[in-house]
C-alpha cells in the first residue's frame, strides 16, 4: 500500500469511525460476549457462572421444547419457502404482462410488505377467526360444516402462519419481476422464431435467467424463516400455543432469555441457530452450481 493509499484509508476510516464504534460496541461485542455466555449459567441480574458445555448438552439431550421448536421452524420453512417461491414467480409472471393499470396491480401486491408485522398478525388473526373470519365464512359457503380452527387448534396453526407469510411476499415478487425485466428480449424473439410455446419459454428462458434471483430469495427467505418471531409471538400471545404448535425457534429463545431469565441457555440456542443457518446457506450455495445460471459462464 502506497503512502497516498494509506492516507486515504486513514481518512476513510476516520469518516466511518462513528459507525465503526457503534458496530463494535453494539454488534461485535455482544456477538463475542454471547459465545462466552453460552457456556455459563447467566440469569442476567447475577454474574455468569461458567459451566462448560452443559447448556448445549441440556438443549440436545434434556429439552423436548428445543426439539419441538426446531421441528416447528423446519415445518414452517420447508413449506412456506417453496410455496413462497412458486407463488412469487407466478405472480411476477402475471405482473410482467402488458395489461392496462399494471402499476396499480404491482402496488397492490407490494402493499402488504409495508404493513407492520404487528398489524399484519392482528389482521390475520381476524381473517382466520374460526367463527367470524372471512376465510372460514367462504369455506362455509362451500358446505364445510366444521371449518378449520386455525390458530386455536394445533394442527391448523402452522398452516395459518404460512398463509400469512405468503400474503406478505410482495418484496420477493418485486425482485422476481426486476429479474424478469432484465432478461434480454432477443431471447424470447429467438424462441418465438423457433416456435416455442409459452410454457417452453418459461422453462427454458425465464426460469434459468432468473435462477440467480431465485437463489437470492431462497437464501434470504431461509434466514427469515429461521428467525420467524413476531407473528407467532403476537398471535399466541408469546406462548407458542396451542400445544406448542407456534413455538418457533426464536420464540423459544426469547422466552428462555426474557421470560425465564436463562440468558446463557438462550445464547447457546442463538449460537446453534447461527451455525445451522450458516451450514444450510453453504449447502444451498454449494448445490446452486447445479441449478443457477450465470450469464457468460
Amino acid at each position: 500500500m502506497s503512502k497516498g493509499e494509506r492516507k486515504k484509508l486513514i481518512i476513510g476510516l476516520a469518516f466511518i469511525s462513528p459507525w465503526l464504534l457503534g458496530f463494535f460496541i453494539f454488534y461485535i461485542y455482544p456477538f463475542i460476549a454471547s459465545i462466552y455466555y453460552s457456556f455459563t449459567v447467566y440469569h442476567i441480574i447475577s454474574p455468569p457462572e461458567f459451566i462448560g458445555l452443559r447448556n448445549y448438552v441440556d438443549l440436545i439431550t434434556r429439552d423436548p421444547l428445543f426439539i419441538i421448536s426446531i421441528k416447528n421452524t423446519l415445518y414452517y420453512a420447508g413449506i412456506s419457502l417453496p410455496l413462497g417461491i412458486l407463488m412469487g414467480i407466478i405472480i411476477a409472471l402475471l405482473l410482467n404482462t402488458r395489461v392496462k393499470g399494471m402499476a396499480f396491480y404491482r402496488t397492490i401486491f407490494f402493499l402488504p410488505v409495508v404493513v407492520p408485522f404487528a398489524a399484519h398478525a392482528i389482521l390475520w388473526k381476524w381473517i382466520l377467526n374460526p367463527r367470524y373470519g372471512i376465510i372460514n365464512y367462504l369455506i362455509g359457503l362451500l358446505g364445510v360444516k366444521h371449518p378449520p380452527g386455525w390458530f386455536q387448534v394445533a394442527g391448523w396453526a402452522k398452516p395459518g402462519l404460512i398463509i400469512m407469510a405468503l400474503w406478505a411476499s410482495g418484496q420477493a415478487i418485486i425482485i422476481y419481476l426486476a429479474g424478469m425485466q432484465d432478461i434480454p428480449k432477443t431471447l424470447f424473439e429467438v424462441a418465438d422464431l423457433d416456435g416455442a410455446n409459452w410454457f417452453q419459454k418459461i422453462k427454458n428462458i425465464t426460469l434459468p435467467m432468473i435462477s440467480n434471483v431465485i437463489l437470492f430469495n431462497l437464501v434470504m427467505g431461509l434466514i427469515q424463516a429461521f428467525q420467524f418471531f413476531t407473528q407467532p409471538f403476537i398471535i399466541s400471545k408469546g406462548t407458542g400455543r396451542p400445544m406448542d404448535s407456534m413455538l418457533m425457534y426464536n420464540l423459544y429463545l426469547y422466552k428462555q432469555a426474557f421470560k425465564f431469565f436463562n440468558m446463557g441457555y438462550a445464547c447457546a440456542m442463538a449460537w446453534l441457530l447461527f451455525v445451522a443457518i450458516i451450514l444450510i446457506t453453504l449447502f444451498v450455495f454449494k448445490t446452486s452450481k447445479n441449478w443457477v445460471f450465470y450469464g457468460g459462464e
Partner: protein
Amino acid sequence: MKILKIFLIMILVFSLVPFLVLARGDKADKAGKEEKAAEEKAPEVITLRIIWENWGADFTKYLDGEWTEKYEKDHPNIKLEWLFPASWQEKEIAELAGGDMTFDVFYMRPSFLPAIVERGGLIPLNDYFAKSGVKTSDFVDATMVTCMVGDQIYAIPGGADFIGWFVNKDMLEAVGYDPDNPEINSIEDIEVINRRLAKWDDDGNLVQLGYMPIDFYQLINWGYMFGGEWYDPETQKVTGNDPANVKALEWLVEIVDYYGYEELLKLRGEYAEWSGASPDHPFILGFTAFDSNGWWNYEILQNYAPDLDYGVINFPTLTGDPSEKANWVVMGWSVGIPKGAPHPDEAWEFLKYSWYDFTAEFGALTINSPSVKKSFPRFEQLVNEQFGADHRIAKLMPMFDEMGIHATKSMPTTPAGEFFDTELDRAMEAAMSHQMTAKEALDTFTERVQVQIDRAVGK
C-alpha cells in the same frame, strides 16, 4: 497535504469531544453547585421513579394523575415519576442488569418476585416493617406470602385480586335457576349447570357454555380445592403431581371432554379476549354464563354491556362446605424496592403510604381491592361513596371481600418464575387433548419445573 489537514482537524475534533462534554459537565456542575447553594435553605426535592404494569390508560390515569397529586400534596418534597412500559418484567430486569439503578419502586406479580429475589434483585424490607410497626399479619395471608422468601420480606402486598363468579342472570333463569340465588356451590353444581347451559348449533359447533375450564389459574385453584399443594418452599420441591392435583386435573378433563376440547378451543378463539377487558368478551356477548373476575370488571360491563343483568356469586368449592372457603386462591400484585435504589427510605414511605396507611383510598380510586385486612370496612365505605350505595357493584363488594377474609391460598411463588405457569398450561393442554393422562402430564410438569428451580438456585 490538504487531505492530511482535514484528517488532522477531524482527529482534533474527535479528541476534543470528550473534553467539551467534560467542560459542559463542569459548567453544569458549577451551575449545579450555585443552584444547590441557593437551595440550601429549601429542603431537597426527591423524585421517586416507579416501574409499573401498563394497565391501560383507563386505569393508569389514576396512578400518575389523582394518586400522584394526593401523594405529592402530602409530601411536598417528593415527586413521583411513573413508567408504564410494554413489558414491566423486561424493563425491571434490564434496569437490574444495567447496574446503575435509577428506579426506586418495582411493581411485581407473584411469579416474578422469587425469581429476582433468588438473583439478588430486591432489598429486604424486614427492618422497614419492624421500624414502622407494620406486621405481616396485618395483610391477607395469601397475598403476604407471595411477598416473602423464607423469613425475608421483599415487597408489600399491593392489590389483592379477590375473584368472584360474575353470572348472567338471564341465562341462569332460562335454564331454571333462581337468578338472584342460583345455588352453585360445589363441583357437582357446576357439572349440572354445565349440562343445562351447553348448546351446539345444527352443524355441531359449540355455541354456548357454562364454565370454561381452560386456564392454568383454574387448575391451581381446583388443585387446592381437592386438597393438593403445588410447591414446598422449605425444601424447594415442586409438588405438582400431588394426587389431589391429579384428581383436580382429571375432573377438568372430564368437563372438557363433555364439550369437546377442539370445540372449546375454537370457541375461545372466536373472541379477542377471554379473560381481559374487551367489548367482545363472551360473557358480555352472552355465550358463557360465567366469568371469574374481580370487582374491576364492573367498569368493563358498565361500558360495554350496560343492559346486561349480572350478579356475583362466591367461587364454588369442592362440596360446598363453608370450611372449604379457606382453599380459595387470591391473586394480586406487590410492590418492592430494587437493589441499588437511589432513595430506599423515601421509597418505603411511599409503599407504606399507598398500600398500608391509605390502601383503602388507593384501592377505591384505582379499582383494586386492598390487602390490609383492617382496611376492608373503610374500603367498602369509600366504594359506596364513590358509586353510591345503590350501585350494583357497591352492593356486591362484600362478596369479594369475603374471599379476602377466608382465602389462605395464593398462586405458587417459586424461583422458576413464569416457567411454572407456562409449564402448567402445557400440562393442561397435554391432558385435555389426551396426549397424556393427567398423572403423566403433571409428572412431566413437576420434573421440568424442578430442573428449572434447581438451575435457578444453583443446585
